[in-house]
């Protein structure tokens, strides 16, 4: 038998930090979502390679949308990081303030994204390129909407006093989800906004 001390140690109970099943769950969620976005990007690149030089649109997606959107999501990752730090110190005013800022950034991103859609010179029906552009950004946008709902719920839980330094898993989970969603955006930004403008 393994040594008796380890078997008789005092153990934490319930939902705590990176040992909690909530954390393991979001790691698994990110794994499967990362696979999903890999397949989306694969599909985009596969079609691009098959089509060759004619891939894309005469007027490429505008960086004057893409850059502010990217800034907003990078800022969102920063505020989510602050929120997580605040939660582990039980500094709940900072926690709520940073989560609220995050929410504002995300809503800003969503507004920019939708207006970008309407400003494009092509539609999902124009060509395979248009279809791929809108489905890739659309999948990401859906993740942003779900993530915004997640932030709202965590703010409510923080205001209800459910979160402190020993019980901060919801903040950790939301932060991890958002770091992932923001990282995906960086890839999409390069692929869909930067590359078409520089080639």
């Amino acid at each position, binding site marked *: 038998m*393994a040594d008796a001390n380890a078997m008789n140690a005092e153990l934490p*109970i*319930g939902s705590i930090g990176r040992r909690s099943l909530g954390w393991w769950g979001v790691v698994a969620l990110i794994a499967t979502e990362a696979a999903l976005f890999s397949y989306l990007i694969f599909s985009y690149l596969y079609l691009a390679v098959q089509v060759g030089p004619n891939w894309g649109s005469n007027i490429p997606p505008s960086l004057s949308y893409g850059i502010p959107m990217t800034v907003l999501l990078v800022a969102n990752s920063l505020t989510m990081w602050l929120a997580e730090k605040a939660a582990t110190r039980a500094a709940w005013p900072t926690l709520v303030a940073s989560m609220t800022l995050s929410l504002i950034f995300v809503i800003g991103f969503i507004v920019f994204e939708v207006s970008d859609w309407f400003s494009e010179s092509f539609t999902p029906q124009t060509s*395979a390129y248009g279809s791929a552009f809108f489905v890739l950004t659309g999948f990401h946008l859906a993740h942003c909407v779900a993530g915004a709902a997640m932030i709202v*719920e965590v703010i409510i839980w923080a205001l209800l006093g459910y979160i402190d330094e020993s*019980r901060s898993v919801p903040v950790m989970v939301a932060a991890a989800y958002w770091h992932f969603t923001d990282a995906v955006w960086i890839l999409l930004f390069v692929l869909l906004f930067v590359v078409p403008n520089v080639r």
Partner: protein
Amino acid sequence: MKVQLQRVPEIGTVAEAAQLNLDAIWRTEPGIGGWLSTVDHKEIGLRYIVTAFAFLLAGGVEALLMRLQLSRPDVALFTPEQYDQLFSMHGVTMIFLYAMPVLSGFSNYLWPLIFGSRDMAYPRLNALSYWIYLAAGLFIYVGFAMGAGPNDGWFNYVPYASRTYNPGSGMDFYSLGMIFLGISTTVGAVNFVVTFLRTRAPGMSINRVPIFAWGTLTASAANVMVVPAVSLAFFLLWMDRQFNTHFFDVGQGGQPLLWQHLFWIFAHPWVYAIVLPAMGMVSEGLPTFCRRPLVGYTPVALSTVATMLIGFGVWVHHMFATGLPTVSLSLFSGVSIIIAVPSAVAVFAWIATIWTGRPRVTVPFLFFASTIVLFVIGGVSGFMCAVVPVDWQLTDTYFIVAHIHYVLIGINLFPVIGGIYYWFPKMTGRMLSERLGAWNFWVMFCGFNLAFFPMHLTGLWGMPRRIYTYPPGMGWTMLNLTTTLGAFVLALGILLLLLNIAISLRDGAIAGANPWDAATLEWSTTSPPPSYNFPVIPIIASRLPLWEDRLNDTASRSSLNEGYILAHGRETMAIRAVDALPDMILKMPQDSYAPFVLALGMTGGFAGLLTHRWWLAIIGGLIIFGALTAWLWPEVELGEQAEAKRG
């Protein structure tokens, strides 16, 4: 209610635990409420198995109808369109609605028992995964019943599946149904992965985990990575069909081959996912009946994982005839040949186990041992098709049909039925009849080989798959008649199984805790197990805890009668993933309606998408949001709220 944030877990004996009324903590309330809200893995596992068997019967009837049509030349029992739907639904049913779910059922039922735990890591997710599976299966079958089943085979190639060539809603039922089912598979897979890593009994370090669990773990990890590929493929197809996007439309820059890539990136690993857990069952059963530990535990566990790793890189062997560059074909051909090596490791380990053991020929032994034979036949025909020129000759012929049936019936259905004979006593407390079982086995075995062995020849002699009839004088008439006869004999064998179950449920011999004198943990608790599985969470010291005295290969002994009591509400032990030292005490959720409501909301949502009733899709979305909020709301009893500390 005050909830502590930490404590030293009490260690006690089974007798002490017996006075605590664990059943009151863990049981599901009787009645419809309990039925809809239960999160008990045993109940969910049984539902999975029963539902998967219902789909097996439906898929079997579809097969028999096709065999009637093909029994003689020029039979006109079905129109071509009806025949197309029959073979498509047969494939979809067997591969997606039977083969994987039945294994999920066994794993759900057995994992907490072989791990010495009280439930899966995410009990509510477990319930959700079952409800979605049921709803998605019915969703696809509703389409079929309305005459709108898929009609392009289970792999559903574009452009035939595109709206231009395939109007009507059959493809849309199939597309949305598959996305729906993918959610079930994914959440189920996540549950298995985390359960494997976190909720084994203390002491069950990574080198002591039963091979069956390695099989399901590997399949689940793969599903987490590959299910999104097929969900995406079906989503893009649905977009093309309903919103005029151009992913698969060559005229506008789309690519039909993109479908094939996305589909097979998923579907080849899936084939391994639906056999590896079943191979794991064989690795559990053979040692029991050969009275010795499995030969080569470590190589078998490693080769299970290796099969999947290599299996990620073989999907193009389904696409050899599509005109891809030679370099690509050579690479994927090479990998497809190499994958035979880890598969062969398991086969030789099984043979060595029988060879060096003292086999007791029981019905489960027959099913498990026959798996080896069928696997070798199916494996060799697969190996042949890994060679590009051979595949060019054989692709889309009945040779491939013979191959896939040797693989899927040989290494899924046969071990699953072996598993039923083996674990039925644990699940019900009664033995299945060995006498009727022997008939069951031999009728199935003969029927199966009679049906599918000649089919190799049918293919070699040029009969293409999926044709709805054929003229006389092609040289296929006798072969087809033989296959049809064999198919009905096989079906008779399945009926004998159902008969055996029906009789034995009432009159079978009482099993007792360990009727086979087996070695793993599930046999240490009563048959059927109590709601809490184990009075105390055992502490494990070897791979085969119930054979330690007999094998006597180490001095250490597992502690089954004295262990962690954990009776402050629903609790189980979490461990560190590799060395299995206790890590934390998990608070497990009560029964909950949230999974059922969530699945209902999803059903409404998908029905809305199918019929373009966007209001219905939105209502479905709101129900999903509401159910998720209720589900995830931090609960004091689960130790999820900061209040817990303040009490």
